């Protein structure tokens, strides 16, 4: 199925995205820090990925990607870094929230 890589990304993102609205983390209030940190990680990782994809470190199975590419990489691979950086920030803030609430009790 050509949507499989996209489905994997959706599966990774689903619970963190839903929980980020349910838990009182107020990530939206810190969107500038979020955009900056995600952007400053994505740019070098996109660059690294595009270079080494061209060098043949890895390749993407055409059976499982949509077929839309940019600089030699499937659109799913570009989205991968946006998903993972968001999930990283969410997970860290969720852990801080849970640990912080426990220590205050």
């Amino acid at each position: 199925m050509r949507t499989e890589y996209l489905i994997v990304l959706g599966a990774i993102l689903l619970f963190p995205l839903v929980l980020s609205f349910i838990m009182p983390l107020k990530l939206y209030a810190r969107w500038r820090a979020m955009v900056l940190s995600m952007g400053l990680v994505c740019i070098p990782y996109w660059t690294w990925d595009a270079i080494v994809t061209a060098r043949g470190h890895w390749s993407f199975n055409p059976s499982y990607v949509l077929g839309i590419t940019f600089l030699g990489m499937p659109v799913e691979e570009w989205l991968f870094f946006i998903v993972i950086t968001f999930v990283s920030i969410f997970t860290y803030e969720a852990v801080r929230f849970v640990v912080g609430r426990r220590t205050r009790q």
Partner: protein
Amino acid sequence: MREYTVLAVVSVLLAILLDRRLRTRVLQKVEFWIAACVMIFFKIPSNGYLTGRPIVLYDPDHLMGVRLWTIPIEDFFYGFGLITFTIILWEYFLRRKGAL
């Protein structure tokens, strides 16, 4: 040369250096290590699917060939570097909140 092996390890070293340079001390926070363990736990099924199907194919010339299930060991360094950089910069920009 096993370029992926080298680059993955270098990315982790650079993250450690950045944490020191920006004085974010992320690597000294227990919350960071809990979050990292949670993400590594969920990484195994998702990365396992990507490498097992396989959706992503690796050139054996650029890695060591050591795998946990289907996941090349380099992917664990790569992933750790990626999440560590993100959380370091997140902490850094939160601290500079007044300036944003």
